[in-house]
């Protein structure tokens, strides 16, 4: 691996390289410590944290589809207190940026998590999940309404000085509208995409396969769709974008960067190869070394110039 500078700034957040791992696909980080050196990552985005622990949805929660994974975890998480007590101490000692994904059923849930964690050492930024398709009140009502998204962001803005990354839902007619609301209200960056709503039916049982009936699709199947969303958002906002959706290798990551992402996040790929994220860091680093003397920034949104 070559020693190029891949530092990138996402709002107020500085990443030593543009590769993060996606919320819900990387547990609380430590689960991957046996497999990879977590300090090689640009950042770790935690599983969604809610004020209280959540049990999540009934099984089955996850199934395979052609080149995709359909999940309906239902925001199962340990809750704010356990996160602070048991998970954060470990994460805080890592050199990877720690981004806490925040979800809630109502505005005060988000505010509670964000303000509590802003007082803790070790959190570098928040990813505000207004796009979970798998729970009734998982924030997606904020993610599909520009006005409510703006209000939520404004409230969170006054609750923290840390960077607010707004995670957008692709399950909308126009992601840019929602983004505009959030941008005006003081967001620092966007991440997208969250999963696409989907389902599967068990024809023997004559019912949906997932316990929750409906789930969210991720993985290579959605890569063309996710890339388009990043491309489109890049044309409409000034804020930096963290791109994700089906990134399996560094070539996919470069596609997202060319589409307009300042950083990428690796999700489903972590299940298939626990070291996928680190391989992508290495792949990008080699790629960038070959492109020298051009620096990383040069390539962000490059495909728009063609």
């Amino acid at each position, binding site marked *: 691996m070559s020693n190029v500078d891949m530092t990138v700034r996402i709002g107020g957040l500085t990443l030593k390289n543009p590769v993060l791992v996606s919320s819900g696909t990387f547990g609380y980080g430590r689960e991957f410590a046996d497999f990879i050196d977590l300090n090689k990552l640009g950042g770790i985005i935690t599983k969604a944290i809610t004020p209280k622990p959540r049990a999540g949805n*009934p099984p089955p929660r996850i199934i395979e589809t052609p080149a995709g994974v359909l999940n309906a975890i239902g925001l199962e998480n340990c809750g704010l207190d356990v996160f602070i007590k048991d998970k954060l101490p470990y994460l805080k000692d890592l050199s990877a940026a720690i981004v806490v994904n925040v979800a809630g059923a109502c505005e005060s849930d988000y505010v509670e998590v964000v303000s509590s964690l802003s007082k803790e050492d070790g959190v570098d930024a928040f990813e505000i999940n207004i796009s979970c398709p798998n729970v009734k009140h998982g924030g997606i009502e904020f993610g599909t309404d520009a006005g409510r998204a703006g209000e939520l962001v404004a409230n969170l803005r006054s609750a923290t000085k840390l960077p607010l990354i707004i995670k957008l839902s692709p399950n909308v007619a126009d992601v840019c509208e929602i983004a505009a609301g959030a941008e005006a209200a003081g967001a620092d960056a966007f991440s997208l995409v969250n999963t696409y709503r989907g389902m599967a039916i068990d024809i023997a049982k004559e019912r949906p396969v997932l316990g929750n009936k409906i789930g969210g699709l991720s993985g290579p199947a959605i890569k063309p769709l996710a890339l388009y969303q990043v491309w489109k958002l890049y044309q409409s906002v000034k804020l930096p974008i963290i791109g994700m959706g089906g990134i399996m290798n560094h070539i996919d990551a470069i596609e997202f960067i060319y589409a307009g992402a300042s950083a990428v996040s690796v999700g489903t790929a972590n*299940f298939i190869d626990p070291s996928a994220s680190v391989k992508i860091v290495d792949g990008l680093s080699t790629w960038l070394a070959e492109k020298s003397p051009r620096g990383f920034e040069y390539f962000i949104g490059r495909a728009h110039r063609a």
Partner: protein
Amino acid sequence: MNTKKTSSIARVIRANRFAKECCEMVLECPGIAASAKPGQFVQMKAWEGFQPLLRRPISIAGVVDRSSLLLWIRIVGPGSRLITSKLPGDEIELIGPLGNGFEPPDKNEKVWMVAGTLGAAPLRFYSQLYGAGADCRFFYGGAASCDMEVVEDAEICKMNVCATTEDGSAGQKGLVTDILKPALDESPPDRIITCGPKGMMKAVAALSAAAGTKCDVSLDCFMACGFGACMGCAVPILDDGGKRYLHACSDGPVFDSAVIDWEAL
């Protein structure tokens, strides 16, 4: 889980078809072989690309020559077909050992085993590692005589085997619980460990509960990551305080059958 999990490339040493659509594989993988416990499993990938997308979980059926893993795999779909199509010399990607595994027997603890077809795999490993012998009863249920090759395995043969087949083409005709019940009625052991189809394990758990015998089950449920990162493998737990789930890959796959909410599973 105290053993370090590793990601390895294992070389196929042997791959033989047996029973009906089953394959016995021996994979050279010293790291995992050295630390694996009965009941633990590996996540396997033996293909390029996205078809299928996820790795496939397979129980460790034993350790061969200290450095290799023995696996018993039934071909049920694309993943198991691709894995079992590998030939000696080919390589397979593995992560493991994963999961908690079965508790070793206490001194003098009397442990019985109940297996449905390839559910015998982790129990075989238990016998191999902890030296179950002729005083250990091994109850086995298969569909037909072709499933009997499992109980011809040398490690399993050492035990006191009672077998059934659904069609009666070998062993006693019926379900494994048909022979387990009278045995339990007569003199229950300290613990039952079981692995097989869900319906079978549920019935075994109920019989054990009725007999006042502890019963540990090894659950098979769909997994994405295999090591506690995705929360995909939820196992519903009986809890007064409402719904609660454990995770088959990290809290299990072995659970005390008494904590499982079998209706919701």
